[in-house]
């Protein structure tokens, strides 16, 4: 080991850290730091080829998992915000001990500061903090003053952004007190990295993240004003349009909490309630992920529509615990950083264990003077953080000249603060070989009694530039798992803590939020619609490419009629006289199908499927999610983005198989809870509509040559095999109609769908006191009966004689009843809440 280190550690051999910075892996003379040696040896033992192979595999897993996308809106444009790197960051035990102590102190300090500012405000009276720092702060929400949160704790979750200066000391870059994000990423990074390097992970004795989440879970439960033994905890997310949504969903599932948005909650009698299919259920604790100012349209002035009217009052009444309490974001602003040493002396009587990056607030004359004099060296920032909304302001400030900055600051000094630039340490990242990047660390603390527990691990963030983090993250950053090394063997911990007392066994959970049920219902519908369209397209494409034994020229027009009916192609193609004037279908069809901007196109259906899937991610299994992901990835035109019929054939083939996997996993793995029922309701309603559409488009009017048409219809309806096994090649209308409509043994028949629908409707939660049947029960029964009582032979005979009316009327009736069923269900269970409005204000005169 004392020999030339370069020949020992082959992986690190080609790595050259930049000069003038601290490197996390190499010390002087490029010798590996002692705590990294075990890791580097283990990596070398794996060998380069194997390492590359494992990394490729890990990346594939990541792709198929949750974190491939940060938001559903435009999946292609928004890659994972923090691209994971293969090499973890290593932190030695004594070092982490020091960092932990400093974070613990800082969390306590910030908590006391919040308590004072939302209470007595002695810090302002005694001159420890300049009053204008609070008075001019848009985040000082007056209605929250005087709230008394459980245990008088104002800060349950805290995160600090840290950086290491060239001398090796850690500095605090920023405090995060509103609702620190990134925990989900830290977890995911750990999952991926430890799976990729299980041997190395074991050998290095890495501290686990689970104890932190166990502590977090305990803290959250302790906030419950009642139901202490089994409180209802919800994670209040900003919703699917937020870049943090995936993380929210991931955390909710990991911690076992219900994922909700503002619209899922309501306040009744000063109690927060969750709107579920089974009615309103009391909520005890809210893990808050959205900004305080978005939480209550009545008192906190949120106009975002995300809030819960009356929440502030429920908090005042002590009926719900919030983590973090409302208003906690007040002190995560740069302006406060300037006063931390003084606050620490005043509130704790201690020196800060870890310094913050030198910061000045321009709202005070000394600060203003210093900033104006040193504009070259400093980074000017908004003094008061507007979480999630001030990115453009930061970009603007970064692009301004010195004179422009000075002018802006002087116009409204209290709105600006400035910080020194830290030359952050370097760390190797893997990109075919090891290259340096700059490191910042987001470390987490959670309240535990009077003190704080620090997560043994962190979200390590890497970037090429030394710009402030808020800016560099928008320009693409990397992240790493952070391994805090233990001094001895590490105990295995699991989040599924042993219950102290026996739990009551349950077979159902009524806690499906109405909004989630709505999304699941539509997920089911889109899935069936996708399959119906894919089957039509496959049959069409195979006939157009001449791959089939098609003998008649009737089928393609018929299929085109079906496709036009479903909005896949222009209606003109359904009319034979017009077809000649339109561009050749061979070119138009593939392009139209892959065109996501056409709202009804198969691609658009799949986009919607993906969007819905991502929103209900916390309610479906990881495997189900993977299938949705594969479907989304797979259904793309071939090389160059120009779609051909061959592409269409190949992709629809795959799609149909993948959709079969999807429905298979639902049937085989989804517990028969309400989520399952709503998925099924959606699927069955959609499939019924598709069957009826097919029958209508293909048999009314009845074509002249029946054989090939019947075969095509049966093929599209996935019933050809059954038919052949029963009737061989003898194609008869009555037999075809029976199979498609009235055969209860055929899972593709209309009656099969209606039987299922009636059963599911029967199982929906309802108030038992109401006599008689509900609307949805009645509609479902009447639909089922109308098909069961059908004399299909007679219908077929009449139809064959050219009297299309009976079948036409039947189809029309079904087509009008199914939407009624859908509406009745949605009215009772899904549309719980209309949007809320502010009562019209009238000016004083």
């Amino acid at each position, binding site marked *: 080991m004392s020999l030339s280190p370069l020949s020992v550690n082959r992986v690190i051999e080609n790595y050259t850290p930049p000069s003038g910075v601290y490197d996390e892996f190499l010390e002087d003379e490029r010798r590996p730091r002692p705590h990294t040696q075990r890791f580097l040896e283990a990596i070398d033992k794996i060998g380069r080829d194997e390492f590359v192979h494992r990394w490729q595999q890990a990346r594939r897993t990541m792709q198929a998992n949750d974190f491939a996308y940060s938001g559903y809106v435009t999946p292609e444009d928004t890659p994972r915000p923090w691209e994971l790197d293969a090499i973890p960051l290593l932190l030695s035990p004594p070092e982490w001990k020091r960092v932990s102590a400093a974070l613990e102190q800082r969390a306590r300090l910030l908590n006391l500061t919040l308590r004072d500012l939302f209470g007595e405000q002695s810090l302002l*009276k005694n001159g420890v903090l300049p009053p204008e720092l609070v008075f001019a702060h848009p985040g000082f929400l*007056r209605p929250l003053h005087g709230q008394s949160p459980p245990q008088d704790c104002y800060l349950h979750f805290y995160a600090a952004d840290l950086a290491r200066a060239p001398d090796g000391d850690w500095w605090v870059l920023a405090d995060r007190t509103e609702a620190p994000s990134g925990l989900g990423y830290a977890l995911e990074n750990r999952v991926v990295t430890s799976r990729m390097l299980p041997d190395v992970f074991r050998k290095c004795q890495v501290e686990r993240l689970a104890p932190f989440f166990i502590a977090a879970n305990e803290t959250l439960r302790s906030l419950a004003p009642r139901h202490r033994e089994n409180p209802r905890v919800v994670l209040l997310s900003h919703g699917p349009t937020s870049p943090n949504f995936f993380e929210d969903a991931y955390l909710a599932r990991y911690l076992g909490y219900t994922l909700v948005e503002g619209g899922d909650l309501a*306040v009744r009698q000063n109690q927060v309630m969750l709107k579920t299919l089974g009615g309103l259920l009391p909520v005890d604790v809210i893990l808050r992920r959205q900004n305080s100012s978005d939480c209550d349209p009545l008192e906190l*002035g949120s106009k975002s529509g995300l809030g819960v009217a009356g929440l502030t009052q429920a908090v005042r009444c002590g009926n719900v615990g919030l983590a973090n309490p409302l208003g906690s974001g007040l002190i995560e602003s740069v302006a406060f950083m300037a006063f931390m040493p003084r606050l620490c002396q005043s509130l704790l009587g201690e020196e800060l264990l870890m310094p913050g990056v030198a910061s000045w607030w321009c709202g005070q004359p000394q600060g203003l003077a210093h900033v104006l004099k040193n504009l070259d060296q400093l980074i000017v920032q908004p003094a008061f953080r507007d979480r999630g909304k001030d990115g453009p302001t930061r970009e603007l400030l970064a692009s301004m000249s010195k004179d422009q900055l000075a002018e802006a600051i002087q116009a409204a000094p209290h709105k600006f603060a400035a910080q020194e630039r830290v030359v952050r340490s370097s760390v190797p990242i893997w990109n075919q070989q090891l290259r340096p990047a700059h490191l910042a660390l987001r470390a987490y603390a959670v309240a535990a009694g009077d003190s704080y527990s620090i997560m043994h691990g962190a979200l390590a963030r890497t970037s090429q530039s030394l710009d402030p983090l808020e800016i560099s993250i928008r320009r693409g950053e990397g992240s790493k798992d952070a391994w805090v090394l233990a001094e001895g063997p590490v105990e295995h911990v699991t989040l599924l803590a042993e219950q102290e007392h026996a739990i009551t066994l349950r077979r159902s959970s009524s806690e499906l939020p109405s909004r989630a049920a709505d999304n699941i219902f539509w997920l089911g519908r889109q899935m069936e619609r996708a399959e119906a369209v894919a089957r039509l397209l496959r049959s069409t494409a195979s006939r157009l490419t001449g791959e089939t034994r098609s003998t008649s020229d009737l089928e393609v027009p018929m299929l085109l009629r079906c496709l036009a009916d479903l909005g896949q192609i222009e209606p003109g193609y359904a009319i034979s006289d017009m077809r000649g004037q339109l561009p050749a279908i061979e070119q138009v069809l593939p392009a139209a199908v892959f065109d996501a901007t056409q709202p009804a196109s198969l691609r658009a259906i799949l986009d919607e499927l993906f969007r819905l899937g991502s929103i209900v991610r916390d309610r479906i299994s990881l495997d189900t999610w993977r299938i949705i992901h594969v479907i989304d990835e797979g259904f793309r035109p071939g090389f160059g983005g120009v779609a051909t019929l061959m592409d269409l054939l190949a992709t629809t083939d795959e799609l149909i198989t993948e959709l079969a996997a999807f429905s298979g996993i639902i049937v085989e793995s989804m517990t028969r809870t309400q989520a399952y029922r709503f998925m099924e309701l959606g699927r069955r309603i959609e499939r019924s509509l598709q069957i009826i559409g097919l029958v209508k488009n293909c048999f009314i009017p009845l074509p002249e040559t029946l054989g090939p048409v019947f075969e095509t219809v049966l093929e599209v309806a996935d019933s050809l095999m059954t038919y052949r096994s029963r009737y061989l090649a003898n194609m008869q209308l009555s037999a075809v109609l029976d199979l498609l409509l009235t055969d209860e043994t055929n899972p593709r028949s209309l009656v099969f769908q209606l039987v299922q629908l009636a059963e599911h409707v029967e199982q929906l939660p309802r108030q038992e006191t109401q006599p008689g049947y509900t609307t949805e029960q009645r509609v479902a029964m009447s639909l089922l009966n109308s098909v069961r009582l059908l004399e299909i032979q007679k219908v077929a005979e009449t139809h064959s004689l050219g009297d299309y009316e009976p079948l036409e009327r039947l189809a029309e009736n079904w087509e009008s009843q199914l939407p009624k069923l859908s509406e009745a269900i949605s009215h009772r269970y899904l549309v719980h809440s209309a949007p809320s409005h502010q*009562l019209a*204000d009238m*000016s004083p005169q």
Partner: protein
Amino acid sequence: MKYRITHTTKYTYSEAVPVCHNLVHLKPRDTPAQTCEYYRLLILPDQSKVSERLDYFGNTAAYFAIDQAHHGLSVTATSRVSVAVAKNADTGTTLAWEEVQNRLRTDRSAEVLDAYQFVFDSPYVERFEALADYVRPSFEAGRPILEGVLELTARIHDDFKYDPRATTVHTPIHEVFEQRHGVCQDFAHLQIGCLRSIGLAARYVSGYLRTEPPEGKPRLVGADASHAWLEVYCGDAGWIGVDPTNNLRAATDHITLAWGRDYNDVCPIQGTIVGGGERKMTVSVDVAPGEE
């Protein structure tokens, strides 16, 4: 002066409202010159559970929710208030405005600290460059603060046109400033912004004017609705109210409900409802002199 006040706000909805949450500031607060002797809040549909608390500024804020379907809401506040003639600070002897400005910045006594919070921007009062230019002519160096304030009040009264149709509660002051018209709330916000631009403390007052003028006096503008004006911190002379809508110093004709940084802190009634379809609102205010 004693007053009997009845303030009724009625909302009607074309469709049922299953639930509403409301926050009202309708109880006249006690001030050195004003005492609220009686106060009652009547809500229809009947709502017995009203939570009252003192808000951050010491006003009484009442919260209530109705969670039975209703087609209308009526809120009536009745009160009896006695307003004493305040000791009228002599305009010329008030402190120089710079002195007040300096005291606000440096004095950490409870009284001044309380005043200091009214120096900064608030949701409805965002200062802008032109505002400072507008205010400056009235505040020459060393001028007694009240002199400057009264002159500014008169200027706003003269330069701006009273027009109830020109603005809504959400019209920002820079728009009022550019278009030179508005209602009492706009003028109060505007003057508050002016004074804050030069580092003085000004707060928004929500209240009423007596409805029928004393004999021989003209009826004041804004007398049949809730009214708004402002108060300025004048150092030793304390808070002095001025009414730019009527170009007056607030005296016994002005009854204070609540004060805050701006309308947003103290609006008489605010609410959030679900559904409701078309909504209509009517307000009536009656401020009658009572027996002495």
